[in-house]
């Protein structure tokens, strides 16, 4: 009864969420080592969008526009992309613990991105993203195959086997990454890569946002086009097929989308954990389990969550910026524990 009630009342929530996102972006642009008043932030925005044109402090403009806003936008895209990937994986694998990070997909993406960088195939974001995509698909295939060979099916045991396979995959790909760095990277490359691996938004600028935005938008669009199929997986793949879902095409499209979103976000920011786990579950409590509502809610909440985590990572220890992955893990690990305990039944 309760779930339906919340679900029915959710239409209002959905309209609030874009406002929350705008508010979060403004906070992201205003809060930091030097606090910039919201009025200045708005002035910079207005002048950048050509609404007003009177001269601004170039320092304010540089901090707000080139540094903080770019960073907030990338954080939002990254949160949206990872959260949508989480929803997709949870529905297709029927596993409430499925998440790109826990399933080793992020680790595979890191390996791919590092390989491309070290091999000198171009340090550009596009080539790194393509390497990351290949790595993400390789990691997913490895984990899925391992879970299958280990006899993982439905139910509590199957869910556990999948997560174990994810751990094995993550360890394997992280070791590969470390090996590639030790073997092939020069000292300067190695330092840069280690910094990036921890999940870091410090180096992010607008060109990253121009890549992150279309990818986040496209993954949202794909997920929205498949909300009925995602729902149809509730009783398993066979049931989805008997409801008219073309399993091969749908799974290929959705897993490809999740892998691409994860890969591009990892290429830009490094592997950031738990977003794809925490956000969809929180949204299920707010808007229910039907994907028509869950997908847009998760996208927006993921974006807001990540922007706020980034803000916290910048202010929690004065004078020091924590890797954002630390903050998401501090929120995510307890949530993971809660889901595990609740899943016991």
């Amino acid at each position, binding site marked *: *009864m309760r779930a*339906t009630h919340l679900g029915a009342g959710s239409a209002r929530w959905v309209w609030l969420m874009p406002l929350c996102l705008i508010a979060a972006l403004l906070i992201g642009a205003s809060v930091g080592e030097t606090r910039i008043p919201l009025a200045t932030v708005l002035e910079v925005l207005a002048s950048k969008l050509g609404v007003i044109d009177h001269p601004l402090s170039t320092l304010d403009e540089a901090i707000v526009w080139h540094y903080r806003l770019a960073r907030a936008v990338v954080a939002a895209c990254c949160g949206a992309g990872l959260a949508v990937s989480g929803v997709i994986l949870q529905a297709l694998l029927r596993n409430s613990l499925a998440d790109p990070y826990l399933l080793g997909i992020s680790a595979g993406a890191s390996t791919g991105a590092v390989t491309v960088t070290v091999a000198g195939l171009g340090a550009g974001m596009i080539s790194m993203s393509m390497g990351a995509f290949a790595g993400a698909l390789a990691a997913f295939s490895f984990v899925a195959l391992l879970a299958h060979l280990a006899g993982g099916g439905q139910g509590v045991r199957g869910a556990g086997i999948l997560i174990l396979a994810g751990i094995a995959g993550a360890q394997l790909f992280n070791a590969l990454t470390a090996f590639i760095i030790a073997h092939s990277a020069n000292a300067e490359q190695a330092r840069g890569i280690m910094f990036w691996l921890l999940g870091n938004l410090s180096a992010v600028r607008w060109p990253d946002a121009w890549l992150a935005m279309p990818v986040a938008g496209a993954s949202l669009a794909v997920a929205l086009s498949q909300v009925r199929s995602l729902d149809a997986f509730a*009783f398993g793949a*066979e049931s989805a097929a*008997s409801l008219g879902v073309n*399993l091969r095409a749908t799974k290929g499209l959705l897993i490809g989308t999740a892998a691409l979103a994860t890969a591009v976000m990892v290429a830009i920011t490094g592997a950031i954990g738990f977003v794809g786990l925490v956000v969809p579950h929180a949204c299920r409590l707010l808007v229910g389990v039907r994907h028509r509502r869950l997908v847009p809610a998760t996208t927006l909440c993921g974006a807001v969550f990540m922007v706020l985590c980034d803000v916290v990572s910048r202010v929690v220890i004065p004078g020091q910026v924590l890797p954002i992955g630390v903050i998401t893990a501090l929120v995510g690990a307890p949530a993971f524990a809660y889901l595990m305990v609740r899943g016991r039944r």
Partner: protein
Amino acid sequence: MSEPAAPLLSARNVSFSASGQTLVDGVDLDVFAGETLGVIGPNGAGKSTLLRLLAGLLPPGIGEVRFEDAPLSRLSRRQIARCMALVAQQAETDERLTARDAVELGRTPWLGRLGSWRAEDTAAVDRALKAVEMGALADRPWASLSGGERQRVHIARAHAQQPQLMLLDEPTNHLDIHHQLAIVALIKALPITAVVALHDLSHALRCDRVLALLEGRVVALGTPLEVLTPALLRTLFGVEARLVDDPEGDTPLIAFNRRG
């Protein structure tokens, strides 16, 4: 039951193997519009596998299944889902769906990818819930439903799919006797064709025709009285059974003895 010439669904020499074992072996079968066909056989006889083959969920290794003379392999999943619905033997979920949510899934093949939910979809869902007497429990979460209530929701989901053919795998499992009889009556009353895997032979007696399956092969196909002979029941189940006339009804009763 007058049988029209062209079958709704036909299987020709359908075989299926997995792990080197032949699970369904050369099944020839015509299902005619409007009839209720019962499928009986011991555990592991291949009933569920045969239903999956008929539903196009498994591709037969040999042979072919046709719906209205179109090979299933040439139809899209969506086209098939508009023609037939499957109620599987075990289908569970951890999602916090309500009974109504689960029934609404039955509308999937009729909805456009982005197309919105229409009044006729709600009407179909309401009708389906009512048909299985689950209207009052429509807003209950899945986890709170009893086994029999879940089974009825699955049947309602198939009903909301508005198929011409319903494939049901032991639909009366978990149901109390009232709802067993109600579901069998509902299946017979619906203007659809049904293929029903059954364990309860008294329900098989109420079908129009019965197919007996043993080790993946058809051992008998005909009217219930032709098929449910003491000799066949001995072959299938290793029990002594005979039909006795019910002094107060039309359908005979089955009396069992374990083979001693």
